[in-house]
């Protein structure tokens, strides 16, 4: 097969430490933390009352005026994707329909039939307030607090209290739907729903789509909000969250730290612009780096717990390296998921040790969750944007709260302060905490 080369020409991020890749990257380097007590609702009855929450985000800053009316049917996850998409397009120097309609560009410079989208999404939570109000009208005995009964018989009538388009707020593919409308992307489009692995798999698939010539440009990554009562109670039921640092949110999520106690939820989106190399060169685009390899695997021992030896993560990484034609000796930066639970971090560290052997202590490990928490389907792309930026700037941010690396993990996590980085080739991987899908990518810095 005559494979096309695929490069990264745009980075779009919306995270709890910044709306934009430079804002996010600078905050990480300055050791700022986006994890705080939840403001969106009263979290006092939750075991974990903190989150990497984006406090100020107005989606209308990222769409065009005629589209404002559709903001009403965007779940938070969709808003995050739309914000990251705008940032990615701007960063890539592309003139999309949205930018023209906003008066920020004269004319569209993209062939929409060659512009695809591949956006990872989570299980989007319904707006509980909206739904509870409607469901409340179908209670048999609303006065009997503590013993209220819901009546399906009343619901047939009461459901009309919801907006007709209610369902469309929560379909996972509505992230891609809105992004493709706002920026006019008509080429192959997909929505990957594989939990924390979604971004890696979506970017990997977009990479393949451009490699085989089915598109010249693809906006890809993911977005998710876990700052929602439903999304916060679920990982509580699964005993995955840190519950012992509600009083000290900025110290709560501690990737690979000896004293880590669980994850912290967050919200965010990351979208990259992948572009066919000749196409990028022809338009004089700034090329950050090249996607060189992709691999995917699956935890086949459990759909709910990580493998202690990180086998599927290692397999995906080995496939990605083989696809890129590199060995682990050439990898000089690693980006695991680093969610901060005992067992997930241990499995990832085991995968890194088995991949790098006696080089394990030489390879710097970049982890972001201490600052922004677990952004689900959006996490991977935010991480990859940070990795790409770190290679461009020659500096890598430290992992917040990795004060004492767990000796059982035994990997070289960047701690305490930013480091000078002369990395050329990075490996990044992620696995779905529920479901067990794994994806890995090899990314090379573009030599100027």
């Amino acid at each position, binding site marked *: 097969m005559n494979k096309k080369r695929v490069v990264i020409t745009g980075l779009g991020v919306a995270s709890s430490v910044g709306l934009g890749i430079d804002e996010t990257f600078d905050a990480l380097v300055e050791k700022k933390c986006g994890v705080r007590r939840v403001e969106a609702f009263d979290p006092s009855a939750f075991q974990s009352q903190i989150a990497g929450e984006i406090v100020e985000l107005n989606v209308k800053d990222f769409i065009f005026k005629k589209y404002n009316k559709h903001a009403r049917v965007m779940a938070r996850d969709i808003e995050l994707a739309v914000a990251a998409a705008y940032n990615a397009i701007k960063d890539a120097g592309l003139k999309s329909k949205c930018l023209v309609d906003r008066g920020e560009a004269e004319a569209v410079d993209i062939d929409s039939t060659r512009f695809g989208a591949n956006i990872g999404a989570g299980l989007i939570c319904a707006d509980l307030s909206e739904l509870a109000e409607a469901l409340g009208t179908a209670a048999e005995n609303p006065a009997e607090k503590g013993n209220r009964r819901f009546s399906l018989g009343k619901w047939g009538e009461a459901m009309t209290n919801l907006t007709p388009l209610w369902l469309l707020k929560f379909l996972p593919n509505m992230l891609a739907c809105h992004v493709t409308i706002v920026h006019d992307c008509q080429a192959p489009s997909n929505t990957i*729903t594989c939990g924390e692995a979604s971004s890696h798999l979506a970017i990997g698939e977009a990479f393949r789509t451009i490699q085989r010539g089915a598109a010249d440009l693809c906006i890809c990554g993911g977005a998710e909000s876990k700052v929602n009562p439903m999304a916060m109670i679920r990982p509580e039921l*699964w005993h995955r969250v840190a519950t012992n640092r509600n009083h000290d949110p900025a110290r709560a999520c501690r990737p690979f730290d000896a004293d880590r106690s669980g994850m912290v939820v967050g919200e965010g989106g990351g979208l990259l612009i992948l572009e066919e190399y000749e196409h990028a060169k022809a338009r004089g685009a700034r090329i950050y780096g090249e996607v060189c390899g992709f691999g995917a695997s699956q935890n086949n*021992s459990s759909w709910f717990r990580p493998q202690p030896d990180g086998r599927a993560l290692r397999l995906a990484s080995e496939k990605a390296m083989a696809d890129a034609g590199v060995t682990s000796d050439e990898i000089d930066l690693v980006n695991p998921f680093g969610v901060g639970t005992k067992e997930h971090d241990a499995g990832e560290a085991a995968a890194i040790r088995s991949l790098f052997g006696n080089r394990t202590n030489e390879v710097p490990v970049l982890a972001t969750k201490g600052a922004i928490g677990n952004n689900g389907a959006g996490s991977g792309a935010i991480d990859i944007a940070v990795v790409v930026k770190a290679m461009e700037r020659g500096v890598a941010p430290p992992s917040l709260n990795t004060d004492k690396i767990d000796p059982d993990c035994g990997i070289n996590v960047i701690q305490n302060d930013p480091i000078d980085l002369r990395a050329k080739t990075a490996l990044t991987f992620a696995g779905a905490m529920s479901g067990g899908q794994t994806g890995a990518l090899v990314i090379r810095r573009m030599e100027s």
Partner: protein
Amino acid sequence: MSRRVVVTGIGWITPLGHDIESTWQRVLNGESGVAPTTIFDAKTFPTTFSAEVKNFDLRKFLSADEYEHHKTVSRQAGFAMAAAKIAWGNAGLDKVGNIDKTRAGIYLGGGEGPLDFQNFAKAAIEGWDYDAKVLDTKRWAEVAGACLKEVTEAEQDPNMAAGHISNLFGLEGPSFNTLTACAASTQAIGEATHMIRYGDADVMISGGCHSMIHPLGVTGFNLLTALSNRNDSPTTASRPFDRTRDGFVLGEGAGMLILEELSHAQKRGAKILAEIVGYGSTADAFRITDIHEDARGGIAAMKMAIEDAGVALTDIHYISAHGTGTAENDKIETKAIRGVFGDHAPNVPISSVKSMMGHLIAAAGACELITCILAIRDQVLPPTMNYENPDPLCDLDYIPNEKRPATVKTCLSNSFGFGGQNDTLVIKAFD
């Protein structure tokens, strides 16, 4: 040299049956799987019927040990496991121990698991403050924390079916789940085909599973007025391309295919059912609710798939339509087919098995592709049932009401999803 992708196994769990042969006979006979809803009490809903999978028991498909290990699966992941098990056996893979499991993967269009509705609703109404008109999240969390269950919540994630299936067969190849609404499993099969072509895998289990026949699923579609309201006559409610059609009928189920690289299949002496030769995927990028009026996305997806397949328009002997039975879809799909096939369009037989099975949402495309494979095998085309009143806006050959013997070598299958997702596959007799 490009790697060819063939189908070596099929399996499905549908509203018309749980095995390939008897279900296929019912499809050819024009039987309906639609009936009043029994999964929940839908009496007061605008739509009171659906196409349920009847008498499903996962125990019949798994060994006792396997069942014990996987018994917490959600309804649609159970359908997926059963269909995958049928397909795996149909491909003869249960009898070969030595395939490289790191090169055997899974690509599903799996839906989200049904919500734990009773407990969800309980927490919501207990948390609702009727006076202040706000959700008291403190109260909500107390109730929800006590009544929601660890496992039931976990099994709702759309990628859990893929997790269970990979565990069942020990697969360590690429594993993906896409959820592009009604287009998901067609898309999954198309992308899985590309993974094998590229060399990411040699074997892929691919297809989809979904069950939205639960109170909030039906609520969502009823609010969109997408469902038929023909409550007095469920079996005639799904009437694709008929002038009096009034919406789709919600179904549930799973369809699974074993996709395999040709030489891998030949080496192990597998029976080859068909070859996947073309895939096209596009986005309408038009409106969140409406299909583009000129059908531009559907036309582009079909053209992309036909070009990928390298077949002439006149070689396509059958189109398995998305054919949902909504006014909008059927009109615009007809326009799309005309847009692609031009003057030849009236010569191409088209049908929608949704007229019998209902709309299996994420699982629809996979089940419809299986009907294409069976049509090629048996040289007979399934009918569009309930087609009684011609619609001037739908003026093609929809194989009305009776199966039709025909020469069938190449078929095209469409799936179009809410949100403007368009996917098309082209499948061919293997030679």
